[in-house]
């Protein structure tokens, strides 16, 4: 099954690669995949948009950072606190906004994201302000230390695999079908008795939760966090990962996260033209493959399969 591919690939990468740079890169892809997956549930399946998801990422990272550095909590207790806090905040934001239709939630998340960034910057007593928060401890799971790059990679990808599994189960359930109904037509869905408002809130909270867990993993990985990471630009990058990878596609999230994590590294070759190329790549992909890379590649694969079988079937119209 597909999970075996991920588990095998992650294990191979973890044990096979020795370059710390590559191990770190793959770990970041994992963290970004978790973020993109959560956002995809919200955007692709629930049909909403979040322009401030970096805030939940930051909330998870700063909660665990502050609790472990200033108050010497155990990281796992801090994880629980981060999850609870994020759920509460996500509820507070989503409840009033998800009663409205259209893009109002997107705008609200934009506002929340910016405000959160200002809080991260200004509450220096707690967060260290612009200088950031240092000395976040690494994790250990009982006797197993997770401070080595290899072990951390395995941890992150274990979490990612778990959530991929959970999301697939969710989509293939009553909730998933209700989501698809809401996505197609909110009115039709609610006339069928689906509580669309509550459903959207639940998915929003789930996606915020996943972002917070990603933040937790990030904080203990890099041991230093600063507000610059959790800004509007990063929120936009996450949205881009989802759209480029393919909305309403779990594996699209992985693809999008991988592409957009690797792209800046590959573009370093272009030096000062990096931004121009990055922007161009986004525009071109959206024009040529608007449904995202994953579906686009599937479509191309499907087309060539047909044209290989018989000459007349190759011409589409």
């Amino acid at each position: 099954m597909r999970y075996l591919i991920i588990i095998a690939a992650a294990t191979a990468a973890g044990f096979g690669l020795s370059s710390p740079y590559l191990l770190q890169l793959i770990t970041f892809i994992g963290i970004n995949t978790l973020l993109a997956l959560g956002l995809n549930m919200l955007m692709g399946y629930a049909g909403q948009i979040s322009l401030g998801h970096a805030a939940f990422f930051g909330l998870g990272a700063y909660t665990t950072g502050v609790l472990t550095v200033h108050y010497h909590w155990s990281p796992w207790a801090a994880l629980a606190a981060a999850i609870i806090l994020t759920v509460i905040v996500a509820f507070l934001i989503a409840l009033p906004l998800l009663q409205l239709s259209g893009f109002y939630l997107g705008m609200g998340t934009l506002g929340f994201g910016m405000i959160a960034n200002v809080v991260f910057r200004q509450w220096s007593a707690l967060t260290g302000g612009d200088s950031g928060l240092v000395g976040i401890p690494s994790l250990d799971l009982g006797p197993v230390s997770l401070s080595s790059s290899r072990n951390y990679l395995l941890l992150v990808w274990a979490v990612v695999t778990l959530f991929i599994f959970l999301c697939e189960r969710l989509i293939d359930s009553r909730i998933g079908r209700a989501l698809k109904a809401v996505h197609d037509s909110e009115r039709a869905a609610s006339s069928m008795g689906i509580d669309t408002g509550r459903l959207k809130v639940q998915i929003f909270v789930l996606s915020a939760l996943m972002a917070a867990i990603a933040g937790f993993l990030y904080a203990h990985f890099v041991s230093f966090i600063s507000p610059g990471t959790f800004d509007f630009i990063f929120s936009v990058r996450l949205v881009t990962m989802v759209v480029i990878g393919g909305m309403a596609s779990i594996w699209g999230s992985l693809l999008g996260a991988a592409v957009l994590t690797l792209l800046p590294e590959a573009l370093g070759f272009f030096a000062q033209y990096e931004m121009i190329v990055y922007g161009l790549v986004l525009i071109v992909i959206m024009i040529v493959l608007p449904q995202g890379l994953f579906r686009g590649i599937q479509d191309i694969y499907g087309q060539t399969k047909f044209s290989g079988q018989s000459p007349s079937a190759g011409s589409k119209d």
Partner: protein
Amino acid sequence: MQEFVQYLFSGVTNGAVYAVIALGFSMLYSSTRLINFAQGEFVMIGALSVISFWKGLKLPLPLAFAGAVGVAALAGLLLDRLAIRKVKKPHPIVLVIITVGASILLRGVAMIVWGKDAHGSPSFSDSPPFEFLGATLLPQSLWILFITLMVVAGLHIFHRKSLTGRAMVACAISKKAAAIVGIPTERMVQLAFAMSAAMGGIGGVLIAPISMSSYDVGMNLGLKGFCAAMIGGLGSSWGAILGGLLLGILEALGVGFLSSGLKDAVAFVLLLLILYFRPSGILGKAAVERF
């Protein structure tokens, strides 16, 4: 009391700039239902271009002004023709990502052309600041207010009196109906892009003398202009102006009486408040379809 007046002046000055940027957002949204995340970059292009034309090439100010706005309008035009038009199935989120890509691209180009340094610009007139109601008023503020008023009046006349302007309003009300009566809707969209980018450019030219401009100032200004447009009511010209002024004043008061660190948060707190209490904006529902 004196401080209050001072904050009011600087608030109205910044607010006028936000208003012009917000007009760009509103105008484009009316015509295309699209929110252009690259709008802030047009502001940046306007600011840096006027500095290049005026300080660099030593062109006379009116020419430099027009040239800078022209460059911004051209960028908007290119965005429409080379990117937005090419999309076969215009799903809103696809278009949003395209504008995001465009904003990154424009920032990259600006970084190459103008470098990473911040550039300053002299004020439009050489007169010194003067006293008014017990507070200091920069002559640049008067220029900003004057030009903003001209822009608003000009737009008003354009949309009410000229055939093209009325055609744009028709497209905003209903594209299909406009097409039926023979209005070339694609060209109207193109014009909307060019005009809204020009609005951004004008905002940039106005703000260049009072703050340092560099290749990355676009995002912040664009976001604030967007908040102003939302607060006033997206799609409403008067809403954009009201939103811009309100935002500018409240921001200045916040910085003055609370803390300068919270300056950037003011816009977004207002945005959230509007969304919670009156999502369509202050002048929203009533004016959503008309200019």
